[in-house]
């Protein structure tokens, strides 16, 4: 960075190398590996700029059972994401990896999904679940929208059924005439409308 350059920490050769890295990163890496003579991992030149250090991925990270549980748990860092999404997305969050380790520890203890979720609720409160449990007052969350739609829909159907009235086909010009519009006028109007259509 600027300040480091001012301190003269890089040699000219390194600067040329870095410029090349910016242009052809893949090629430079290949070169680096070839120089070292094996595929062993090399250290990054600025590890502090590469985000939080990560642990190696184990089978637990891809275990559908664990992912299923984590998708029901909210990360408590305030991000509004579930634990799985947060730990695989927000790589600056230190909370979701810790919650993940807790889930893994409980799975290793042989606890069921229900027991794990209950343990989290006991520790963090109901808010730790991504959706409210379907019990007590929470049922209102699930049923009020549906009930409102069904109620309004039924009322609408009822009102419409009461208010709707039978109509007579256009072809039946007589009824038009009976209602005060002559059959010629009705036919003319329909012809005009179909033209516009």
């Amino acid at each position, binding site marked *: *960075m600027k300040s480091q350059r001012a301190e003269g920490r890089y040699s000219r050769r390194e600067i040329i190398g870095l410029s090349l890295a910016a242009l052809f*990163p893949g090629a430079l*890496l290949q070169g680096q590996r070839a120089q070292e003579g094996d595929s062993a991992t090399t250290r990054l030149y600025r590890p502090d700029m590469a*985000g939080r*250090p990560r642990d190696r991925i184990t089978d637990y990270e891809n275990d559908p059972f664990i992912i299923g549980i984590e998708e029901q748990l909210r990360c408590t860092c305030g991000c509004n994401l*579930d634990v799985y999404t947060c730990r695989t*997305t927000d790589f600056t969050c230190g909370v979701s990896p810790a919650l993940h380790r807790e889930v893994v520890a409980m799975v290793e203890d042989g606890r069921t999904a229900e027991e794990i979720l209950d343990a989290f609720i006991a520790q963090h409160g109901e*808010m730790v679940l991504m959706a409210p449990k379907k019990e007590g007052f929470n049922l209102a969350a699930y049923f009020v929208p549906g009930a409102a739609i069904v109620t309004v829909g039924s009322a609408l159907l009822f009102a419409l059924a009461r208010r709707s009235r039978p109509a007579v086909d256009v072809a039946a010009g007589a009824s038009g005439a009976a209602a005060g519009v002559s059959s010629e006028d009705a036919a003319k109007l329909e012809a005009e409308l179909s033209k516009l259509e």
Partner: protein
Amino acid sequence: MTVLGQLALWLALLLGVWGTVVGFVGGWQQRPELIRSAQRATYALAGVLIVASIGLLVALARHDFNVAYVASYTNRTLPLVYTLSAFYGGQSGSLLFWAVVLAVFGALAQWLTSRRYDHLLPHVAGITSAITLFFVIVILFAANPFERLPFTPADGNGLNPQLQNPGMVIHPPMLYLGYISIAVPFAFAMAALISKRLDTGWLHAIRKWTIVSWLFLSIGITLGMWWAYVELGWGGYWAWDPVENASFLPWLTMTAFLHSVMVQEKRGMLKKWNMVLIALSFMLSIFGTFITRSGIISSVHSFTQSAIGYYFLGFLIFAAIALVWLLMSRMPVLESESQLESMVSREASFLFNNLLLVGIAFSVFWGTMFPMISELVRGTQVTVGPPFFNQVNIPLGLGLLALTGIGPLIAWRRASPRNLQRQFAAPVAAGVIVAVLLLALGMRSFYAMMALALATFVVGTITQEFVRGVGARHRLHGEGYPQAFARLVGRNRRRYGGYVVHLGIVLYFVAFVGQAFKTDIEASLQPGESVDLRSPWGHTYTFTHLGVSQYEELNRFTTAASVEVARNGRRVGIMKSEKRQHVDSFGRPSFEPSTEAGIRSDLREDIYIVYAGSVAGTEEAVYRFTLNPLVWWLWFGGAVLVAGGVVTLWPGASSGAERRRAMAGYAASLTGKGSEVAAR
């Protein structure tokens, strides 16, 4: 320039008060000199707010860090385009943006509206001036972007890296334009209520504004999804976050309004309902602003919590009381001019479409507010996240998709069994065939299968409409098929543009289906190591880690991890995902590192690679590899939707014919009170 900006804001305050008062008084007393003055006040208001905005833009461009807003959201290393987009990147700047756009829309409404609706314009000026005045008050007394610091910092804090994305340059203004432009149709509706001129005039006056507003909202929401997808790195585009929900709510009610307004135009029905819908849309646009800025609901998108939430709450309460009073007092003049004649008619299908749209809006609102309700009732906060919203809204969404196909094909007033058979036999058959095929191919996700079957049905209905229309023109006028197609659309842009919009919506649903089949895997790989992932289409992808490189670029230090991708053993290419550490002009890290996903799209699926970080500071990289089916169709659907909207809006010779047709339909509905003449 900031002094000029500040002065312009105070002038805007005076002009806002003047425009509001003379607008309403002039409209009420029909005094031409006051009416003219109100109109000029809207132009002047737009002018002074443009000056204030230029003042802020100049301060941003000049890095005037003595201005608190400039110091908070920019720094010297920020590229110019993002420096200028910081105008709406923070609380007070975005309020100024809102005020200036609203004032410009208010002035345009006065300038562009036909003289036929002169009787509405003074009230429209009063309402747009009053809303602009509210924003100017909030800016001056609670969130002033020209506020100065007691010292001048050498550099600013910079803009959040996640906002340094082309999507964020365009997504917020689009969404704001959508939100803000609702104020114009709202103002016309209220003007019609105040002046008791409740014929279809105000509907004609706002038709284009309504579509423009809806289009901006649609574009804003879609761009927001795109930004979330490419920038946030979680491999999805919609998380039912409260702020996303807040943008979705007015979209739903505006969509309902766009449909129900046709029933009023054709049949003189649903007058009260249309008033409620447009008022609700406006209130929801303000509500969205309220929850984004008040901090009452936690969201990743929220601005800093501040006292301005109280201003918005006060405005919402005042506006709600005024609206209810106005509506109640005008009930007698809002009676329908005709009645529904059959449950199997286009009017009825539009009613049910409205029921579902408003039902979805209610369920989204209810879910968004439920944590607060639960806390009030039980003293316990709960989380209402994606599992809840998906469970409640997917069935409703499918119902809506079905109505998208049904509504446009049913005849007005009453559909006969023959009409139903003629219109629906082929599309229903196509939908059923697709459902059976999907079952036979092993698809077991009920919702996904239903969505694809219904999508086929809707595409069938749209195709049938185009084919029949083109065929009829070919036969009757002897036109070639391309010419017949062009003339068919050109002569009835609203109808066929609407079909194209529906096609866009269908494509959205197709893309949503893909989310049911998303697969991902995490892996830590040393250079040269590989991991396999099987896609829902049956392909096996092999991801081989090539290495990690680090370099400086622009205002950041980048760590890039490269991966070679192969599908079924055949090389697809090299993809790269980055970790970006933004730095200030002294080279100091200015924010937490952000992640740039590597994305490769095709019609079937997206390959989505995220470099999570390195193990122990080495080139051993931790990745998340995701295969995201059908995402491309979402962006394509957005483009189709916009194209349909543009067709609908396109000015042309047909506008007169359309107006005549609308009037004829309306007249027919009046005649139909006694005569029973089918409108179609």
